């Protein structure tokens, strides 16, 4: 059986920064208000010439060698063999916060109600039923796609675009397409 590694293609060229994906996640899991499994990161003007007009929509990157898994003292993180999804087992978690400190992408977050960590599950329960993850389903412009990183041609996509933490050895399952600017006609006033 060939290996599968699911991952996200963040197409910032198409992304309209509508926050739909992030809210679709809240709609599905109703995490406490401050807990956001998926977040939109606005790009600053050095990456896209207008602030808050380019975005990276990021959640857990389901890394090949997850930092969270390496940090967890109780073995709450497992990486599924069948599709590479990194799953956090709430029952095992003791809320030490070490995964939160360790993940350079900010995926695990502290749930103040449960006093445990949690993160994007890639909707594995939905995947197992043949459904799309909530965020991917919700995207109105197909700017957020789920791909099998073992099979898909990723050669034209960026692994570490500007504004995304460069890491070595973790190999996050996420690839990017950068936003583009239109031709701009505007009058500069004195």
């Amino acid at each position, binding site marked *: 059986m060939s290996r599968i590694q699911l991952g996200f293609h963040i197409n910032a060229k198409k992304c309209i920064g509508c926050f739909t994906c992030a809210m679709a996640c809240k709609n599905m899991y109703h995490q406490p208000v401050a807990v956001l499994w998926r977040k939109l990161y606005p790009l600053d003007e050095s990456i896209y010439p207008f602030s808050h007009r380019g975005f990276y929509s990021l959640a857990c990157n389901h890394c090949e060698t997850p*930092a969270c898994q390496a*940090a967890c003292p*109780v073995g709450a993180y497992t990486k599924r063999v069948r599709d590479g999804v990194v799953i956090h087992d709430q029952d095992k978690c003791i809320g*030490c916060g070490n995964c939160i400190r360790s*993940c*350079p992408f900010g995926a695990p977050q502290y749930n103040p109600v449960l006093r445990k960590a949690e993160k994007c599950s890639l909707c594995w329960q939905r995947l197992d039923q043949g459904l799309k993850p909530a965020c991917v389903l919700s995207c109105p412009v197909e700017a957020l796609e789920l791909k099998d990183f073992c099979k898909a041609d990723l050669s034209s996509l960026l692994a570490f675009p500007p504004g995304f933490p460069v890491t070595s050895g973790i190999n996050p399952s996420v690839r990017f397409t950068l936003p583009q600017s239109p031709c701009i006609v505007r009058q500069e006033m004195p």
Partner: protein
Amino acid sequence: MKPIKEIPLVLFTILSQAAVGLTLMEGFFIFFYPGEARLWSPAVPGLAFLCLLVGLACSLFHLGHPSGGIRSLANLSVSWLSREILAFGGYGAVLGLDMVLRYQGMKIPMVLLSSFIAGLAAVAVSARVYKNPGYPALDTFWPFVFFAGTAWVLGLFLLGMICPSLASVLRPFIAVALVFELMTHFLAPIFWLSGGRAQRCTAIAHYRSFFFWIRGGILVLMTGLFVFARSDLSVLILVLLTVQELIGRVLFFNYMVHAADHIGKSLE
């Protein structure tokens, strides 16, 4: 000012490092100053053991579920945090043995050597826990440098408090240790300024923090006292030293900038 987080970990790291510092410094002086009778005092492993015990107890309170603390040994094969618990457990066991033996009047160098090695390993492993990609400023040798500095200064000073007759011998050592802490305190942000965005922001966060300057001030004062004024070892100074260590650790746990805080921002 933002609320201070991770107080249990601040206390745990300071106390556990004070304990290890005592063991290490005592070992050092027993080796180099074998004639000093009071060095084998049972109070030394006694105080270290107490510090470690309180520290470990404190550490439980940083867990969302303290009762699950025992399970933290479950992932020894990959997790440095599991190994840290094991290392401090091992160090605590040998230290406890040493203490008991000494109260029985037995001075066994091999036991001391074991606790020396276990303590050193525990601090090293403890520092390794914080070396991870989440905090680029800490994904370096700095956690070990900070932890070692704390162990060094507090170990020496506490040893001096237990063995007052050693004070004059210890004073220059304390001065050197303080110079080391002073240098690391001010050098670390300078080092970070030449790193990536998160590291530079960490440096700036330090420079903007009152804590950074207060600790720096205390360190300058202490260093001055020991280098130029040949100060005595007093409870007041111990308090001040402890305070600056606590502040340093508050900085460590609160003023590091996480890699994810800067997603979407240019590396420039």
